[in-house]
Each structure stands twice: as structure tokens, then as C-alpha cells.
């Protein structure tokens, strides 16, 4: 068991992550504003669409002009935002950080990668919704929003969790005393 991270470091790492999760929930409105800003930038960069700055809307939203010169407002609600799911992921990271066999750095890395993936998935979802609204109108948007969007979110989250666990359990992070360690057949009690 040599080389294990001291308990204090693990507990501190976990506490920092818990604090991060609480901050994400408490400041979810700020999170939504950040998300809408990224989405605005992405939409403009990818499609060249005209987007209005954050101040154009009283709520966190992506305000953009579609091809027919119509203005569209895509509001980022609490349930559309990634903050709460992100907080849940960070709480998972906090729990994993307490486990002696996992290095805290590896757990923090896995949580950070997971968080980045979640934000990315939600950005892809928002931008796709904006494109569907711009090019297809309200009908197709309802499809994309209530059905496809949920599927993307759920499978995106599942894939993210898979990646997080994969990073955490990857060989090389363990504190194994010997690669040959294992059962000792024939040893009597």
C-alpha cells in the first residue's frame, strides 16, 4: 500500500469538488449565461448567422437571425442548461476522490474531461436546435427539442460517465505492490 495519497489530500480534493458542485447549483443562472454566450459564438462561427449580444435578452438566450431575416430567441432554461448535471458529475468525482486506490489527480482529470464532454454535448444540442429552428421552423424544432435533444443529452451523459470511469480505472494509476500480486494457490488458512 506504499505510495498512497494521504487521507487529508483526498478529503480536501473531495471537499473542493463538493464546493464546486454547490457553486454550480447556486450559480446556475451565471452558468446559463456562459452557455448561451458560447452557443452564440459557436453559431456565428459555424454558420455565419447574425447573433445579438447577451444584453439583447432579459433571460439567458441565443438570439439569432435566420435566413428569412426572422429573429429567433432560444431561451436556455434550467432544464436546458448543463449546470445541474455537471454538479452531479462533480459530486461523483468527489465520491471517487475519497477512494484510496484512485489518485486524486486522476479523479480530478477524469471529472474535468467529463465536464468538458458534457458542456460540449450540450453546446452541440443547442446549436443543432438553433439550426433546426432557423431552417425548419417551429414544427421540426419541437421534434428536435423534445425528442432528439433528450436522446442526445441522455446518451451524451452515458458516454461521458463511461469515459470518466475509463479514465479513473485505467491501469497505471493503481498502487499495486506487485504486478504478480494475486491469489496464492495452496496457501492454507
Amino acid at each position, binding site marked *: *500500500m506504499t505510495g498512497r495519497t494521504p487521507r487529508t489530500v483526498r478529503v480536501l480534493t473531495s471537499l473542493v469538488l463538493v464546493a464546486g458542485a454547490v457553486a454550480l*447549483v447556486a450559480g446556475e443562472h451565471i452558468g446559463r449565461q456562459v452557455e448561451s454566450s458560447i452557443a452564440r459564438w459557436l453559431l456565428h462561427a459555424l454558420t455565419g448567422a447574425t447573433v445579438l449580444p447577451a444584453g439583447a435578452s432579459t433571460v439567458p438566450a441565443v438570439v439569432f437571425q435566420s435566413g428569412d431575416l426572422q429573429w429567433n430567441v432560444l431561451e436556455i432554461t*434550467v*432544464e436546458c442548461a448543463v449546470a*445541474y*448535471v455537471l*454538479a*452531479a458529475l462533480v459530486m461523483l468525482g468527489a465520491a471517487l476522490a475519497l*477512494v*484510496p*486506490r*484512485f489518485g486524486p489527480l486522476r479523479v480530478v482529470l477524469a471529472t474535468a474531461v467529463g465536464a468538458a464532454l458534457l458542456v460540449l454535448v450540450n453546446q452541440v444540442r443547442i446549436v443543432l436546435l438553433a439550426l433546426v429552428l432557423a431552417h425548419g421552423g417551429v*414544427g421540426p424544432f*419541437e*421534434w428536435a*427539442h*423534445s*425528442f432528439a435533444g433528450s*436522446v442526445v*443529452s*441522455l*446518451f451524451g*451523459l*452515458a458516454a461521458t*460517465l*463511461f469515459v470518466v*470511469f475509463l479514465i*479513473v*480505472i*485505467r*491501469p497505471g*494509476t*493503481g*498502487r*499495486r*505492490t*506487485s504486478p504478480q*500480486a*494475486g*491469489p*496464492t*494457490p*495452496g*496457501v*492454507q*488458512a
Partner: protein
Amino acid sequence: MNAFVAIVNTVAVMVIALSLVYFLTAMIAGIHELRRAGAALPVQGDAVYERPFDREPGSFDVYFLVPCLNEEAVIGPTVRALAGGRRSTTIVIDDGSDDDTALIAEREGGPATTVLRRTLPDARQGKGAALNAAFGLVLDLVAERGQDPERVLVCVMDADGRLSDGALASILPLFEDPTVGGSQLAVRIRNRDQNFLTRFQDFQFWSMSAVTQFGRRKTGTVSLGGNGQFTRLTALRELGTEPWSASLTEDLDLAISLVANGWRLETTPDASVDQQGVESLRRLVVQRRRWYQGHMTAGGRIGEVWSNPSIPHARALEVSAYLSVPWLFDLPWSILWHWTLASLVLRADSQFAWATSVPAALIGGFLWYLVTFAPAIFTTIVYHRRDRRIGWPTAILMGHAFVVMNYLSFVCAWGALIRMVRGRTGWDKTTRTADEPRPAATPA
């Protein structure tokens, strides 16, 4: 209020996503392991359970332990089938039966069968205690016969358990790997045609459980199930003179002990064991509640696995995930399922906003079904492929029965929790009935 709803929804989504990751990973790993072993989903689908010693390599001495409490209805054929091995001994543990279990076992088992009679107050202390009593006898017999303990296996069988033809030929080679401490065979329900409940048990065991167990070969954490369960004698000896615990799921407890000691637990696609399914709902609830209680209690042993630095992370994580299933999935989901259902109904206008016309409703409804019921569709296909004799209607019915059968899990998980809180750890043994005459085996 909005924040509360969002938080509960987030918890629901997390539970669904975590279970999706575990379920899909295990199922896909299982199918991959089957292919790696040169097998396919239909393997053993039409197995016959009569001659387990066909092509037996005779490379190990095998002691079959059959704990019995009033098993006169089924014990005869079981010991008869186990009597044909070149290097096997059957020990029937009569745990204080009121019926003719011991008499029938002696009569049908022949010279290779020993009946270990336990009487009250020692008897009827649970399956673990009965197995521990027989373990002492095994050690004595091994010493008396001058057998090499390294080449001795102990197999636990239920009184109604039957090994598939040629089972030993597939199992014994697994133990040539010195890191393998135990092996569990896939379970088939013999009376699956009896009623809906027995069919559903067969679906659970043969479709989901068997395939995920194959997947667990990757981490060496195949769960032991107490029937068709082989363990290396030397691995058991490491656990002392009483390797089986008093837990309600002594088999799961043994699996944790072996994994914690660094042993790999294996299975094979080329052999299986069949047993009776429970035919009445009341008895099924009692049985499953006992399993849940044992499983939930075993959760407290996660630390033992995690504290052994020689166990790979993947193995420790898989065992932890498995032990956490009732706590992380079943109990929370029993509440969140109704929350999700209520949300779906109360917010139907926005949830089904895409249903703006009949064609849109039809196409959208179909796509919604495909996504929402994806695991059910997956297991339907797997069950149909696992045994080609199972028609699509039956497979579809079983695959979708979870909508109703989830409630069995909910009732049993909560029942187990209540018993745990009240400190009740009594053993409710599953009652078995005489088998119907077996029809001739039909090819797939």
C-alpha cells in the same frame, strides 16, 4: 419549485445514465466474450441436462455438495445424474429434513454418494452452515484418499440442479489457470413453460444474467450463484474452516471473499445448469426479497475489495457497481420511475409536442418507443437468439414485461430494507415441487 423539479430530474437522469452504462457495458462485453470464446448467443440454447460427465477429462477430483431440506420431490434425479463421474463424490447434506430426502439420496446416488445427516439444533441454520458442515467432511475425505488439494474442486448444487451434458469437460479446463478460484454456470429454468412467472425467470437468467455474466469474465468477477458453482478447494481453505458465511446470499458472500483474496471468478459459455423456477408469486417475492437482503447486506463488504491493492481497479469497480445495484438503482428508481411517469403525463403537451399530425404522431411514437424501450428491445432480441425455440411473441412479451415486473423488484427491495432495519435475518427457504416427466429433447 423549478429548482426542486430540476434537481429531481437530474437525479433521475443520472440513475438512468449510470444504469445504461453498466447494463450496456456488461451486455456488449458479454457478447464480445462469447465471440472471443468462439461461441455465439444460441450456445447451450438447446442443451440437454442428463449426462454431465460426457467427455470428462478427469483432471480434477470433484466434490458435489447438495444441501437439502425436505427435497424428496427432486433429490433422486439430481444425485443419479451426479453419480456417473470417474473422480467425483456427491455429498448430500440433509439439513434436518422431515421427509425421505436422505433415504432417497442414498438409494438413488449409489456408492459415490454420501449423506451427511444434520439434526436439530445444529440443522436448519441456513445454507452456509450446511455447506460448512460438509466442507469439513470434504477435507477429511481428501486427506483420507490422499488426493492433491491443488487438484480438488468443490461444486455446490441445488437439490433440483442438473448440469448440462458434457459440463465437466468445459468447466475443469478453466481451473488449469492457477488464478481462477471459482466458476459459475449460466442458469436455465427447467419449468419455464409452466406459467408467466417461470418464463420470466428463464428470461432473466438465460437472457440478461447469463450474457452479463459472460461480460464479467473480462474483470474476473463472475458472480457465484449457489447452483452449478465450482470453487477450488485451496481457495476455500484460505477462508478458514467455514468458508461460507451465514449471509442470506452465502454464494455472493463467497464470491466477494474470493475476489478480495485476489482470485478470478470465471464462467464458460459451453455448459449450464438448469433448475426449477418458482411457480407462485408469493414464493417468488419471498425468494427475491431474501436475495435482495443478502445483496444489500453484502454492499457493506465493498471496502474489503477496494482495500486490496493487488486487485485491478476495473475488477474493484465492477464488484462495487454490482453490489451497489439495489442501493443506487432499484431503491431510488422505485421512486424516480413514478416521478418520471408523472412528469410524462403532466407535461405530455411539451413532451409530445412533436405529435402535430397523425403521420407525425405515428413516426414520432415509433421513434420514441425505439429509444425509450431500447433495453427491452435489446433483451428481446437476445432472448430470442439465446434459444431459437423461443418464438418472437414470447420474447417480445418477456422483454417488455419489465414495466410490470419492475414492481416485483421494488416490493422485494423495500421489503428487504424493512427487514434489515428491523434486524430480521431469518432464512425463508424456497420450496420445490416434483418435476413433470421430462419430454424428449427437441433440437433447436
